[in-house]
């Protein structure tokens, strides 16, 4: 499960990564780690043997149990502060199966990101692993059925690690000489072109857009079978990865500030209908979250409010089902962020009727006081909520390695600035709307006297308000 380094949302509190007791993680190249990654405890041996068998048998249900439950349990019990055994160490137990090892390594790195701090070498090795894994899948050499949950987590984690790398790369102040040298030399690692092109390739090679099109008139039953392929020993991996990559592109585009293109990429998936995306809770929440955020930035407030309302209702109804899941914390956090976004949207565009009573009462409880302040044009509150709820924007290009400053907040600052200037512009014009609603035709002079401004100024406000 993708791990957010800051517990206070996108509040850009990056100090968690800098905390002293983890500093040693970055120096692991020079230091001897106090765990032996070549030692394979019995429990792990048993885990990989069974997982390997279930994958060969295409027993999706059992694979999911092992992936969702057993992996988490073992991590909690034996690997709270250390990595799992190396892939090379477990390989003999699984016939040295190349693909299994790639899958195992993907889990291995995910665990490091979740529980430890990855070193620069680990970050780069993880990129290599994704490249190998995706290339094998793209060349059609994979004949497996994996649970959708796993496939979603793979795409989710891939993008999370990309985002993490961009943040990491942009913080030059505390980099060692060795780290800078590696960054300079291996410019292709976690390169934005690479990330986007892998997602695009998965979409293209799987032909998922055409499949979703055909689905609509029953030409294929991709959605009906939840992405699984039962025809003669089929494989769901490429198709479903292609499907989740659609959401992946939406997310990456939002991280780059390209909301228009992000929404365009999402078009093949209709979020107003159930689909494969809505059967994986993390996917549904992520999809709608980015959909809401993109619409907010494009000033499509009504659309954002509707989608927010829809997903908050769903979370409310299904929250307790996921209490035991590793995703639970992430679900709670997104829930809070979505309420913040809803508060912002409603303050900029009052549309009370679009919000369900259940959601409304939660909203008043969580954000009632802040909404009052936003209605009184308190810009600091807009700033605070935006910063809490926004994604972790990235600068896709490598920094100037000769200037040792931290660039990691640049992208966020730009989006915040543009958002706040939009807020100011909206407030300039919002007061007039309430008057104009009362009258179908009103002489400018009368309106001017109500609003206590002179006529020419009022004309400007009125023109601007109608246009918006």
């Amino acid at each position: 499960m993708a791990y957010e380094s800051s517990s206070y949302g996108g509040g850009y509190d990056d100090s968690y990564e800098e905390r002293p007791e983890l500093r040693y993680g970055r120096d692991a190249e020079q230091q001897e780690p106090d765990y032996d990654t070549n030692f394979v405890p019995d429990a792990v041996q048993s885990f990989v043997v069974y997982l390997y068998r279930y994958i060969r048998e295409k027993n999706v249900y059992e694979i999911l149990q092992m992936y969702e439950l057993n992996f988490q349990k073992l991590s909690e019990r034996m690997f709270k502060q250390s990595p799992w055994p190396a892939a090379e160490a477990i390989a003999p137990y699984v016939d040295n199966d190349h693909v299994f090892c790639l899958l195992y390594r993907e889990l291995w790195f995910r665990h490091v990101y979740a529980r430890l701090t990855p070193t620069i070498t680990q970050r780069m090795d993880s990129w290599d692993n994704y490249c190998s894994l995706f290339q094998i899948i793209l060349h059609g050499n994979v004949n497996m059925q994996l649970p959708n949950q796993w496939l979603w987590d793979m795409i989710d984690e891939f993008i999370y690690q990309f985002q993490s790398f961009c943040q990491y790369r942009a913080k030059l102040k505390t980099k060692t000489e060795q780290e800078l040298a590696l960054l300079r030399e291996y410019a292709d690692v976690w390169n934005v072109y690479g990330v986007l092109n892998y997602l695009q390739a998965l979409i293209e090679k799987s032909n998922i857009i055409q499949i979703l099109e055909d689905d609509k008139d029953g030409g294929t039953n991709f959605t009906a079978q939840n992405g699984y392929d039962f025809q003669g020993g089929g494989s769901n991996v490429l198709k479903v990865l292609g499907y989740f990559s659609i959401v992946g592109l939406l997310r990456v585009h939002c991280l780059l500030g390209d909301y228009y293109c992000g929404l365009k990429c999402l078009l093949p998936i209709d979020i107003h209908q159930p689909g494969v995306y809505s059967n994986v809770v993390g996917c549904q929440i992520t999809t709608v979250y980015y959909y809401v955020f993109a619409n907010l930035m494009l000033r499509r407030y009504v659309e954002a409010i509707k989608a927010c309302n829809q997903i908050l209702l769903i979370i409310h109804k299904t929250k307790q089902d996921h209490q035991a899941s590793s995703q639970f914390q992430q679900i709670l956090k997104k829930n809070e962020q979505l309420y913040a976004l809803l508060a912002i949207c409603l303050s900029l565009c009052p549309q009370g009727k679009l919000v369900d009573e259940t959601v409304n009462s939660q909203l008043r409880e969580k954000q009632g006081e802040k909404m009052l302040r936003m209605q009184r044009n308190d810009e600091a509150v807009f700033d605070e909520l935006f910063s809490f709820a926004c994604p972790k924007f990235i600068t896709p290009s490598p920094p100037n390695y000769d200037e040792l400053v931290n660039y990691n907040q640049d992208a966020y600052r730009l989006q915040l600035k543009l958002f706040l200037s939009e807020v100011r512009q909206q407030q300039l014009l919002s007061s007039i709307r309430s008057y104009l609603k009362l009258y179908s035709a009103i002489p400018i002079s009368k309106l001017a006297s109500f609003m206590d401004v002179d006529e020419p100024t009022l004309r400007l406000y009125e023109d601007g308000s109608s246009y918006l």
Partner: protein
Amino acid sequence: MQRDRLVATPERDVAPQYTMEQIVAVNPYNPDILPDLEAYVHEQVNHQTYSLDTNLCLLRLYQFEPSRMNIQIVARILVKALMALPAPDFNLCMFLIPEKLQMEEPFLTLITLAHFLETARFRDFWDEAERNRQILEVVPGFEQAIQRFALHVLSLSYQRLPRLVLAEAINMEGLSLDKFLEHQVVNNGWSVEKAPGGGQIIGLPANEHNYPELKKNIADSIPLEHVSKLFPVLT
């Protein structure tokens, strides 16, 4: 540690029969198309055409490789985006342009101009535009596009308006304005009357914005299902 050069983009020849829009739809994350996209901006300027998708793609590539960014081209893209008002294209572009750059010219001026247009401060807009002709006159059709936008805004707010307000909004007066009004009266249902204190009052055609009763979708109405629930109580 093995580091293979990642061949992130498939080798593709840009065949002449594909339009830029098609290329961008199929293979957008490709550094090799950058020169073609730049050439396409010049084409849009010269032929008075416009393509948001390809321009956004170019801005994105500039984001990926800032050393290849061409300020003149970005400025032209922004001017074209202004000409697309009321579409929000200008703001879409701004999300992709680094903050540092936005604080330099010509971007500062373009941002100011955009702000004036979005808040309907047409007098201020035309004054500022006049002071910065050199940025704008490189894009043919700019003035006409803004006049079209100004008329659009006026038609949303006014049923009738004084000639002076119209003149300020579209930066026209005297004989050319007279001619323009004549044309609108004959072809587009405008009317021109004498104002009581002198001058002229222009009447604009009715639409659902300046005549709210024409509005077809009355969002405040109560749906039938809600009303029918009341009936048992009433009987």
